[in-house]
């Protein structure tokens, strides 16, 4: 914010008397007021869907989340019309896939960021940076089709949860690269120089000085990246159909996840028991993602580097 924060924006009295502009015309004042109103309105309009979605989801499905069964049982043997059962299979599936995705995406993402900030130079650096931006924009459905083309058509594997992780990796890597890159750039050069001056080789400087300094920032980026991919549905539809029972094997058979659970139930929203479950799954998914988001922001509070 500027140091001259003139909210009223009025021309000083003396200027009024002496300048050739004459008194501030009322139309200018009205425009200024109108702009202020518009800005406030725009923000309030944006809040409408946020509040509406959260309220809908909590009111229609929140009550199920309070039952212990929801967190401990699956939908095995439960039909659409029956009440009961839980989302344990889907929650587990979502978390397992997220963990696997992070396991692959974080090393690639962090190393790429290290390359961009610490090593890269010249043309190849620009190419990598450009490709990261392009990867950011790859739609999830295209990532899913690509993995389908490689994993299923070319390599001949069956549809499995692991293939979903591969598609999610494509979506998560750019987020991790960008946030890590930003953090690494904030690490003061003096730290590196001090380390070099002590005769520490470059790779040890990076692993022992630079990365630890940026650690909490990197964790924040990873959590926010995870929050982004956890709600992705398109890869799941193409690569790993829904399954009602608990399954923890990424490499064999089907695996339920929260988005596919929502998708599976959406055709029968007129049935009370089913619709409540669908909204409850949506609520659970939002809660999981919000927790990751808030955790990420909380950790960034402890970040020594954050501006």
């Amino acid at each position: 914010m500027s140091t001259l924060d003139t909210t009223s924006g009025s021309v000083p009295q003396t200027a009024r008397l002496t300048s050739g502009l004459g008194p501030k015309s009322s139309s200018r004042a009205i425009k200024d007021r109108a702009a202020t109103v518009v800005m406030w309105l725009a923000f309030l309009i944006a809040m409408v869907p946020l509040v509406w979605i959260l309220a809908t989801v909590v009111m229609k499905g929140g009550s199920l989340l309070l039952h212990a069964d929801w967190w401990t049982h699956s939908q095995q043997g439960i039909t659409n019309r029956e009440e009961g059962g839980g989302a344990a299979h889907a929650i587990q599936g979502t978390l397992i896939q997220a963990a696997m995705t992070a396991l692959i995406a974080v090393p690639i993402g962090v190393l790429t960021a290290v390359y961009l900030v610490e090593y890269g130079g010249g043309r190849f650096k620009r190419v990598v940076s450009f490709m990261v931006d392009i990867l950011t924009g790859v739609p999830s459905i295209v990532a899913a089709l690509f993995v389908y083309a490689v994993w299923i058509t070319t390599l001949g594997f069956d549809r499995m949860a692991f293939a979903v992780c591969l598609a999610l990796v494509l979506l998560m890597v750019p987020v991790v690269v960008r946030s890590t890159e930003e953090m690494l750039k904030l690490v003061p050069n003096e730290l590196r120089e001090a380390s070099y001056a002590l005769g520490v080789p470059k790779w040890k400087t990076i692993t022992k000085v630079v990365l630890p300094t940026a650690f909490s920032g990197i964790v924040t980026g990873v959590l926010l990246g995870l929050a982004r991919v956890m709600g992705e549905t398109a890869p799941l539809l193409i690569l790993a159909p829904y399954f009602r029972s608990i399954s923890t094997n990424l490499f064999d058979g089907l695996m339920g996840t929260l988005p596919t659970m929502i998708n599976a139930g959406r055709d029968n929203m007129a049935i009370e028991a089913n619709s409540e479950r669908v909204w409850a799954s949506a609520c659970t998914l939002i809660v999981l993602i919000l927790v990751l988001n808030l955790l990420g922001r909380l950790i960034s509070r402890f970040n020594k580097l954050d501006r």
Partner: protein
Amino acid sequence: MSSVTGVSVTDETPDSDGRDPLPGDNASTGRLGDRLFGGAARGAGIVVVALVTLIGVFLLVQAVPSLADNHENFLTSQKWDVSDADNLGFGIARLLWVTVISSVLAMLIAVPLGVCIALFITHYAPRVLAKPAAILVDLLAAVPSIVYGLWGAIVVGQYFEPVQSFFIAALGWIPLFEDTGASAASTIAFVSVVLAIMILPIVTALSREVFAQTPTAHKEAALALGATKWEMIRTAVLPFGRPGVISAAMLGLGRALGETIAVMFIVSSLPDGAPWSWSIFNGGETFASKIANNAGEFDSPSKTGAYISAGLVLFVLTFVVNAIARIVIERRKAFTE
């Protein structure tokens, strides 16, 4: 942190002396550890480049056989008939139109709103409110697209009926607003509104970042000349932020083009052979929703190839849009240097 967009405008801003922040290549000792670690970092960079290239290559290779068998014109045909693997006939004219019009509409709604919100956060909100406001808008990005789809289709759609009737009554003589009898909750126009909400946090986050970077000297100069706050914003902040806003719009457009689930939930697909209509108050399918709707049908390579070719077009579209966004940012960098 630009966690929402994944792209940062501050990225390539050079240091004050115009050098790259870290020239220190000489610091590498050439020892084994250095070579290994440096190699791994470089390798990760190569992986990223390879992945993007491979996406294009794989999609192309698998689309070509089906495109060769296709007896319709791929770009102009309105038909989509892949049920008979030996007699493929598919074209993307409808998909392209629905994809582009819904995303462009979403962008037209989201950009002015996003710019206003960004200005609110950077220049209008009381200091205590600015940060919470930014977080709240970012939270819109935390809602998964499937929840947007569900919410839009089941909860909000019904309230869109009067809006649709109003437009049809007032502007129905324009082909774009023609009445097709589709219910308001399942039209392209309605999904555009939902898409606009979904891309709002991206547009806002990026615009916010550039607006906040407006040099204080520019703003103070405007105010010193007697400008009102709005005039200051119009003459100093908006011109400075224009490239950022353009690239934010492009990134939002890219996101909207590829959105799958919300479109699939909301827009009703039309039967094959339905009459062509330019109307936004009509059902239809985008590239993404077409592919997702038929994910269960990927049983023969030629059929799959048809959908992969649709995916390839989508990839090219988003590639171009994102590349434009990137180039605009780069040019801004050159401009500010």
